[in-house]
């Protein structure tokens, strides 16, 4: 290392000259090499590679020379399973976004009311986050099993006609998955919200009490708007999770009954490896990426583009 940022003894001998920009903060730049490589090679490079190959007729192995244009996309959008997957993702995404935020915030708000046993409750809400989606899927599959689970228990209590069998009902199976997904992830959102609530100036609460604002109204009109950055953080985390939902579905329903709980990530995986049609899988994943960008770019623009912070 010829030049270092701090040792810089060499540059000290030629003080009047402005040092080369490139070598400024050289250590910082060197230390960022893994990040730069990851960003460029993995996130940009691999994505580009994937997008490129989605225009080819790659089967088991990538075949960059078999260019087929938009064929893969045409087939994709005429496949029922893909359409169902997209629809499921939309339902699951919106519901889990809304429910995670609502449940996470509500629980955090309740815990923030100076209650007894806060840490016990907090641990109870948070522990599912420690478990993998595979485990989550299995347990809920079991709890929702119509013969042994909730349905049978309620029926045994005497409510004979009670049916609650989401995992075997194609119309509502996605909600069965949602129950499990919320169970696993909302605790983490709760913690984030709790941290945000703790950051609210105590005086704001006092001010609203002096003005006689009811607690619920204070939350809705004053506190939630103040927690915007926290909500954004939570939103990013939830959204990043939603797009990737795969393990949960595999463990809980394997996409069934039929194809009623298929999700895009599963479609991608299965097309790529099971059907040995990489091109199709890549086309599907490109579509997923596009949908992420459609959501993300306007947000990023609003968040960072409009007003420059720090």
């Amino acid at each position: 290392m010829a030049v270092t940022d701090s040792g810089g003894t060499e540059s000290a001998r030629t003080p009047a000259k402005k040092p080369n920009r490139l070598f400024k903060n050289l250590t910082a730049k060197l230390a960022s090499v893994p990040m730069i490589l990851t960003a460029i090679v993995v996130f940009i490079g691999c994505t580009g590679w994937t997008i490129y190959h989605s225009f080819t007729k790659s089967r088991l192995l990538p075949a960059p020379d078999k260019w087929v244009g938009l064929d893969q996309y045409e087939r994709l959008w005429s496949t029922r399973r893909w359409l169902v997957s997209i629809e499921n993702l939309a339902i699951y995404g919106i519901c889990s976004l809304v429910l995670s935020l609502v449940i996470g915030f509500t629980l955090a708000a309740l815990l923030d009311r100076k209650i007894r046993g806060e840490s016990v409750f907090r641990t109870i809400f948070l522990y599912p986050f420690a478990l993998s989606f595979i485990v989550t899927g299995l347990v809920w599959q079991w709890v929702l099993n119509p013969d042994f689970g909730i349905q049978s228990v309620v029926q045994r209590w005497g409510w004979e006609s009670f049916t609650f069998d989401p995992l075997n009902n194609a119309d509502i199976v996605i909600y069965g998955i949602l129950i499990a997904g919320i169970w696993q992830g909302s605790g983490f959102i709760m913690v984030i919200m709790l941290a945000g609530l703790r950051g609210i100036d105590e005086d704001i609460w006092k001010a609203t009490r002096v003005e006689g604002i009811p607690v619920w109204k204070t939350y809705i009109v004053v506190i939630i708007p103040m927690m915007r950055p926290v909500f954004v953080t939570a939103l990013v985390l939830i959204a990043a999770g939603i797009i990737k939902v795969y393990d949960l579905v595999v463990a809980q329903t394997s996409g069934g009954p039929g194809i009623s709980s298929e999700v895009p990530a599963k479609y991608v995986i299965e097309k790529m490896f099971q059907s040995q049609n990489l091109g199709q899988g890549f086309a599907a994943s490109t579509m997923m990426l596009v949908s992420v960008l459609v959501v993300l770019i306007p947000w990023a623009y609003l968040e960072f583009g409009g007003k420059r912070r720090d």
Partner: protein
Amino acid sequence: MTNVTVKDLTLEFGAVRVLDKLNLEIEEGEFLVLLGASGCGKSTLLNCIAGLLDITDGEIHIGGRNVTWEEPSERGIGMVFQSYALYPQMTVEGNLSFGLKNAKVPKPEIAERVARAAEILQIEPLLKRKPAALSGGQRQRVAIGRALVRDVDVFLFDEPLSNLDAKLRADLRVELKLLHQRLQNTMIYVTHDQVEAMTLADRIAIMRGGVVQQIASPAEVYNRPSNKYVAGFIGSPTINFFEGDIAEGGVEFATADTKMPLTGYEASQGALSARPAWLGIRPESVITGTDVDTQPFTTEITVELFEAMGADTLVYTTLAGTPFRFRMSGQARVAAGDTLRIGFDPAQGSLFDKTTEERL
């Protein structure tokens, strides 16, 4: 008629007793300043009066009504916070009207009250802005406005100016004083800035460790502090203390090597008797120059250090074996090592018992 009365107020946080059987009576229209070092319980007391803290024992009356168990919003108080506590996502107008809307005050009346408050505080041009787009002083004004629109009898201020810079603080101080003269509300004002306390207060309550040490007019507190703590707390630069003995009959105060006459001292109760004591002399009661010889006590000192502050100069020296500071005019020309003749009247100072530290 008493407007705010605090009877035997005790407050404990867990095992810690922060306020200890505190009593306080505040007249209607009075401007009372709670002054004390950090952590002495000023904010706690204010929060108790506002109903924001559940008290452990005692009673609180406002406007003749026992409000001990009432909600903050029902006590007829308005409160202004150190951090302003404005609602950041609402405009100034929204901030001012939020409480009224919530209390279901009719729209036209809200508009009228907001307009009046805005006019009083001269924040009309700001009504449509959000707090983030306001300067510190403007924010503080909006915070006051929020209490103002609610048309309350008692205003509570918790260090409302301490987040502002010196200049703004001085300006807003004057504004507050004028506001009080105009509204004639009862105001309870917490600060640890003594200039604020001295200039604003009708009466100052000096607190220490959850107990009120002295409650009196600014002049009284300054000139006749009830104990050594108050004397040392009030006044900048700090008062000078001499350790010594009062001679029989209270005619004289004697340190190891110096004797100072006490003729004319106004004792707090009865006459002075011989005992060990502290004598406090304020830096600004020292006289130099031609008038020195009119003073009952004169001596010669050597300047050790001086601070020229423009309007005044502060001189550091040693007198009767203790460090001694006094103030001279800013035009005075002194240098370290100079010898000066100074004089003061020890009877204008304050004497404190050596052990109880109470004023004699």
